[in-house]
């Protein structure tokens, strides 16, 4: 039986208060009250009194790991992490963006999260499908077991079965909707480059105007940059104002990486990201 959201909120508040009072951390990344119940905002508690503003409910979907890289190295932080978010923290630790000893993970097992834009339950096919965080220091609710195990990659079958021309037409239609607001890269916990390749002028990798070719360049390269790093939280697709199913492509790349290199992103802090690593016995078959 999953712990209620109310109980998790209570535990989160208590834990945050304790950490801030004991000065174990200088900030706690959690969720705060938005303009109404269904629209919580990411919230940073900096003093114990801030803790009263913390909320947690089924609409708290934002990936708080995204904010870790915003603070100077060495800042002691606690972060509320749902299953996918914990993978993001693991991945950031692998990439040495944040140190394990600087971050305290307040793990939250979740089920039945809802999208605050639509009010609907988030389809687990669009996310990593985990119920429990992979890494945590404190668990704020009981681990969830006995739920159907959903493969995060099942959703791909119908797209993989498509004819390549149809698939190209599908992606072209989706990318043509892009308005280049860059919400996808900004919502992504793994997108921390400054400047992003698409903002560079010399060399200019792609057009800044929202046309097919610039959009294609931006998205394909972004998928590539996230290869073996995407932790499948689905934030990019939820952030997208024009509903481009970015998660599909990320999942596809993640699956290929997992099959080729035998390692999924953000599962263990001992791993090295697959594309900055190699094995001498990698098969040449992967190039075929």
């Amino acid at each position, binding site marked *: 039986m999953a712990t209620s959201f109310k109980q998790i909120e209570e535990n989160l508040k208590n834990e945050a208060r304790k950490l801030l009072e004991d000065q174990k951390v200088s900030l706690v990344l959690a969720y705060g009250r938005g303009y109404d119940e269904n629209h919580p905002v990411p919230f940073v508690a900096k003093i114990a009194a801030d803790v009263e503003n913390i909320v947690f409910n089924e609409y708290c979907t934002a990936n708080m790991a995204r904010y870790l890289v915003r603070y100077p190295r060495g800042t002691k932080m606690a972060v509320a992490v749902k299953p996918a978010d914990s993978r993001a923290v693991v991945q950031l630790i692998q990439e040495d963006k944040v140190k394990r000893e600087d971050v305290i993970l307040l793990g939250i097992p979740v089920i039945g999260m809802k999208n605050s834009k639509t009010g609907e339950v988030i389809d687990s096919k669009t996310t990593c499908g985990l119920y429990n965080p992979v890494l945590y220091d404190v668990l704020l609710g009981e681990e969830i077991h006995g739920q159907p195990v959903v493969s995060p990659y099942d959703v791909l079958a119908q797209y993989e079965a498509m004819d390549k021309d149809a*698939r190209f037409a599908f992606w072209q239609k989706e990318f043509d909707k892009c308005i280049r607001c860059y919400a996808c890269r900004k919502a992504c916990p793994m997108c921390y480059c400054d400047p992003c*390749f698409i903002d560079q002028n010399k060399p200019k990798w792609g057009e800044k105007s929202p046309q097919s070719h610039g959009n294609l360049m931006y998205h394909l390269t972004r998928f590539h940059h996230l290869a073996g790093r995407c932790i499948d939280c689905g934030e990019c697709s939820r952030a997208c104002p024009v509903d481009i199913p970015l998660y599909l492509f990320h999942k596809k790349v993640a699956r290929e990486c997992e099959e080729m290199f035998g390692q999924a992103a953000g599962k263990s802090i001992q791993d090295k990201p697959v594309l900055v690593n190699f094995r001498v016995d990698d098969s040449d078959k992967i190039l075929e």
Partner: protein
Amino acid sequence: MSFEPKILGIACNWCTYTGADLAGTTRLQYPQNLRVVRVMCSSRINPSFIFRAFQLGADGVLVGGCHPGDCHYNTGNLYARRRLAVTKKILEFSGMEPGRFRVEWISASEGNKFAEVVTEFTEQIKNLGPQTKFKIVK
């Protein structure tokens, strides 16, 4: 007029490019459709080069590097192998014909292999026809 594809070749300085030189000095015949760009190592290749090449009108892209284990920088091509494998999967899932992108390990002494690969790849691209999916319409 028959279709003459434009093929971008990206060759590593130490092996494939030297191999191409050898093919030239031994006067091996191979199609002229390949335009070679020399890079210091196959791991120098940013995947965006490949996407961009297709956008700017390449009908095919051929990447050449040292045989795994023979890299001038010891491990460059081992990173490149993983990276380019991902590039290939991305191209494929986006709807591009998989045959338009190819990676080959060609050493400095394999002039004949270079000529063979180029001949075969050009033939393959000819069969696939012009690349229109990524190409930016003028």
